């Protein structure tokens, strides 16, 4: 168990491409941190630098009290779960799980005991003598987890471990992984491009974009107070509505003319207004006109896609509310508005 600290970590490839801009991250002991972002945002590179599979161009990486920049992956006291599991195809489940500690000189009894323990935890006991090719996707995923657990490392690293599973299995494994990490109390860094995974599993989320950290915070902070329009639109499905607007005489206006609220800031000029789809109420006497084009039926709730002052807008309503395409009026819940700078995209 350990805390991890990245100070000014940077990655530049020989061709000059800066995959990760200088970044500071502190990960506490036992914390579950999720790195999330679109593909190419540098999240995997960051993880691979922590693992030691990628050289660190600049900065200092500590795991526990040790600076590990130049330490071999095998000696960093970490375990990694790969996207395609990377199980050794010619070894049985048992051998796969025991290979790491065998290389560290563990005795036969110790290997057998630890493998049995991990297998029990993961419901793999009856598959110990099978080969990876004889297992289902979910079982392989579990073996990969087991391999990490047997190592009893200071730090778990996960590189999109669930992206090869079908949706149902993914939901189930999400919960299992989280519960397991809780139980073992091992610090974990988890990379994913799926914001649902990030929201549900993380103690803290780190949102990356273009090699830069956009925001670090708890899932709730990230969702409710996105630091930028990028975070606002990346986290949450459907994403936050972003409308073009402006400050006008101390009022926040949407382009088209509707006034939303008194301005909290002494500013004027254009602005981006963010509204979460579920922060909207359907009210016949509401202040805002909303034109519904399509109703998307999702069972537990419905999404109304349409236009607000000729700008795309989505509203989330519960399953009891029946709506047909056409003109409606809406109101906003208390504290629903988020304001962003138009140029930088930063929250105001």
């Amino acid at each position, binding site marked *: 168990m350990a805390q991890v600290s990245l100070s000014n970590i940077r990655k530049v490839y020989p061709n000059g491409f800066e995959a990760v801009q200088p970044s500071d991250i502190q990960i506490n002991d036992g914390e579950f941190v999720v790195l999330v972002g679109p593909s190419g945002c540098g999240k995997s590179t960051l993880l691979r630098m922590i693992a030691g*599979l990628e050289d660190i161009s600049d900065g200092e990486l500590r795991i526990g009290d040790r600076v590990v920049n130049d330490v071999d992956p095998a000696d960093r006291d970490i375990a990694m779960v790969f996207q395609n599991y990377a199980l050794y195809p*010619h070894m049985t489940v048992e051998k796969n799980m025991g290979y790491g500690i065998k290389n560290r000189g563990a005795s036969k009894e110790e290997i057998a005991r630890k493998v049995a323990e991990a297998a029990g935890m993961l419901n793999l006991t009856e598959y110990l003598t099978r080969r990876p090719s004889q297992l289902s996707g979910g079982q392989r995923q579990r073996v990969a987890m087991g391999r990490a657990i047997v190592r009893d490392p200071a730090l778990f690293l996960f590189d999109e471990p669930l992206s090869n599973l079908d949706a149902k299995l993914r939901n189930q494994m999400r919960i299992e992984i989280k519960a397991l990490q809780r139980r073992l109390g091992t610090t974990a860094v988890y990379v994913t491009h799926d914001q649902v995974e990030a929201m549900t599993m993380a103690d803290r989320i780190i949102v990356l974009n273009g090699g830069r950290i956009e925001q670090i915070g708890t899932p709730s902070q990230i969702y409710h107070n996105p630091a930028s329009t990028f975070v606002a639109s990346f986290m949450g499905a459907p994403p936050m509505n972003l409308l073009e607007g402006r400050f006008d005489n101390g009022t926040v206006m949407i382009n088209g003319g509707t006034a939303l609220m008194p301005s909290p800031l002494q500013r004027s000029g254009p602005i981006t207004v963010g509204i979460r789809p579920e922060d909207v109420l359907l009210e016949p006497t509401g202040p805002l006109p909303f034109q519904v084009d399509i109703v998307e039926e999702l069972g537990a709730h419905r999404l109304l896609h349409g236009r607000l002052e000729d700008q795309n807008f989505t509203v989330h309503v519960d399953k009891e509310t029946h709506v047909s395409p056409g003109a409606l009026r809406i109101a906003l819940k208390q504290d629903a508005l988020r304001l962003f700078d138009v140029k930088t995209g930063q929250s105001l």
Partner: protein
Amino acid sequence: MAELSTTSDTLTTAKAQPVRRKRIKISNIVDHAVLIAGAVLMLLPVVMVFLTTGFEDTDILRNGLRIDVGPHMGENFSNAMFERSGFTEAITGMRMLTNSLILGVGFALGKIAISLLAAYAIVYFRLRFATLAFWIIFTTLLLPLEVRILPSYEAIQRLGMTNTYGGLIIPLIASATATFFFRQFLMSVPEELAEAARIDGAGPVKFFIDILVPLSRTMIAAIFIIMFVFGWNQYLWPTMITTEESMFTLVRGIKQIVAVLEGGTIPEYGKSLALAIIAMIPPVLIVVFFQNWFVKGLTESDK
């Protein structure tokens, strides 16, 4: 020809009837006819050579190849295997068979060992001169021994390696076909496997022995078959490098057989044809019995 005309007959009658099934059948017959013709083309010559070993030399001289069974097969094969022959009376079929096996197996094993190591170095290490090594090795691709036969012979002579197994085998190994094949295969091994192994604390030697070699088993088997057949079937190089009859391989022995066909006495047809059959048996058996590996190895080497 006969088959073709029948099919066109049926085709005309078929037109009048509800067609679908009938058409499939006719094209099926054509397919099988073509394939059977092909199989006969491949098989018949060897069957005839085999059957002809059942006859006496004078009989073969008079009547040529046969398609019936004769009584002298055992005698001809036993002569081919055990009768001493050649200028120095130093060689039997048995001896040639042994030499061929040494050449085939030695060549295949040597080539696999050397190429697998080289391919591993090229694919899995950050080498400063990797590109140079790559080109040095792969320039040899497709430049077969036949092209540089004379200077190679000269080199072997200067090294005093004529009439040795080493001189026979090692120069044949000096081309990169297998290295290229193993390189392609290793490149297709998922990256994460090496990374997982590194995290699991396996160094380069351990990774090679614990993971890569077991993973490559099928590929190694496939290469072995191809290389064994290639080595066994060598002709020009053994012809030049082995002048002592006790070093002859079966395929090299064919040259001696052919050389005496022109002589004044009655050639030993029965024995010669038996030797030709013996020269075919090991490589054919290997290719037929391990054909799945063999086909995989052959067809994947070009990717």
